[in-house]
């Protein structure tokens, strides 16, 4: 049932990223929580997704740009973490799940490129533009969309399979101080997050609002 859920979530997340309907179910934050539900640990999944999300903020799907497919990679990473069977929020496992997801992004990104090439090379030439009909366009479109779902589900399953076998063994042999794990995630995420200011016009343009936010954040931190 857990594998089925992860495959389904992976397929939906992969489909949502580009093909249908871009409702942002494919964001790592959402994908991580949905994958975490399979292990009754949605918060942990969402937090893994939050780290991936921060790393992914500057990646914009502009034009024909090629970019890592972070949603499906997050599902794979959270799936691997869940199958590791460690206590919730185990800092070492958390770090390794994040690293695994960040690396798996490139495999999932490549699978997207492959699928787009498949659309181009296998499907389109069968339909000579001069013989393209309304029915064939609908069939082609449906086929491509279905292929995208299958691609995402398969790549997630492969990722979970590899991660679920690697992660428990790696975590067992991992003897780094747990503070190193939490601290490194905090430091790298802070750097990535600050780097995302470029999305909003850069620090020079938005200095006042950015600093106002930082002051508010610090006050809230003291209050909570």
């Amino acid at each position, binding site marked *: 049932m857990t594998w089925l859920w992860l495959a389904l979530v992976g397929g939906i997340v992969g489909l949502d990223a*580009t*093909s249908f*309907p871009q*409702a*942002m179910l494919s*964001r790592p*934050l*959402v994908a991580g*929580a949905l994958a975490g539900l399979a292990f009754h640990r949605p918060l942990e999944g*969402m*937090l893994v997704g*939050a780290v991936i999300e*921060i*790393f992914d903020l*500057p990646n*914009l799907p*502009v034009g*024909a740009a090629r970019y890592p497919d972070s949603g499906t990679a997050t599902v794979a990473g959270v799936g691997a973490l869940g199958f590791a069977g460690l206590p919730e929020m185990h800092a070492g496992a958390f770090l*390794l799940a*994040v690293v695994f997801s960040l690396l798996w992004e490139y495999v999932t990104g490549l699978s997207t490129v492959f699928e*787009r090439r498949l*659309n*181009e090379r296998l*499907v*389109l030439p069968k339909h000579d*533009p001069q013989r393209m009909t309304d029915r064939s*366009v*609908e069939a*082609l*479109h449906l*086929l*491509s*969309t279905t292929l995208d779902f299958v691609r995402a589900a398969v790549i997630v399953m492969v990722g979970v399979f590899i991660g679920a076998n690697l992660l428990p063994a790696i975590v067992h042999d*991992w003897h*780094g*101080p747990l*503070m190193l*794990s*939490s601290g490194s995630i*905090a430091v*790298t995420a*802070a*750097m*990535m*997050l*600050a*780097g*995302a*200011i470029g*999305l*909003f016009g850069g620090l020079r*343009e*938005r200095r006042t609002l*950015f600093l106002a*936010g930082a002051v508010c*954040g*610090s006050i*809230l*931190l003291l209050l*909570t």
Partner: protein
Amino acid sequence: MKDTIGAGVRFRVFLRSFAIQGSWNYRTLLGTGFGFSLLPALRVIYAGRPEALQDAVRRHTSLFNCHPYLAGIALGAVARLESEGESPEVVSRFKGALRSALGSLGDRMVWAGLRPCCLLLALALLLLGAPWWLSLVVFLLVYNTAHITLRWWSLRTGWDAGKQVAQRLRESNLERFHEGFAHAGAFLLGLILPLVAVGALTGDRLPPPWVLGGAVAAVVGLKFGSAVRYPLMVALVIIASIGFLLRTTS
């Protein structure tokens, strides 16, 4: 126009526009999806003229690209031009003229504005202690309300304005949304940064040296922007490997 293409057809085009990128490829980009989304309107416009319909299908499955949420503008306007009997050359030139404008406008407004703002809002809620499901629901609800509204507005604007769509776009002043998102995004980014730096992502309160490290890292991030992504990924892999080295040396 309104007599021939009714609300039902518009709604079908609207629904299909959600799948406009379903057959995205490097040769026609979202061209095939454009034809797929436009089909309900083309079938009405060319009812009883199968040759003309197939000709229109071939024309509208050729190379096309723009932001998927604003594709409705092109879909609506093209449907209107087709129904008014404009020549294929005019329609083709019109589509070509819309492509880059709709692409850059949507990329800046949605991908670099609405989306990161909504994500940062959800992250802020999560890191401030809101239940995970609340952050999730707020994100999906806020984002998709804007998303669906924008798609519907796009289609309606294209449909109503036809050839005058460029002027209608200028009048709508969508740039002001981009500016608003930029302001909100910068504030939210600043708000979240201290929470991340103290270890909220892993549910910890890190000791002062780590927090100081986070503050220094933020300054470095502000200076170098997203260029830090790959070095940071390498750093995380190295840090993850340190645990094994410690085992070997101990």
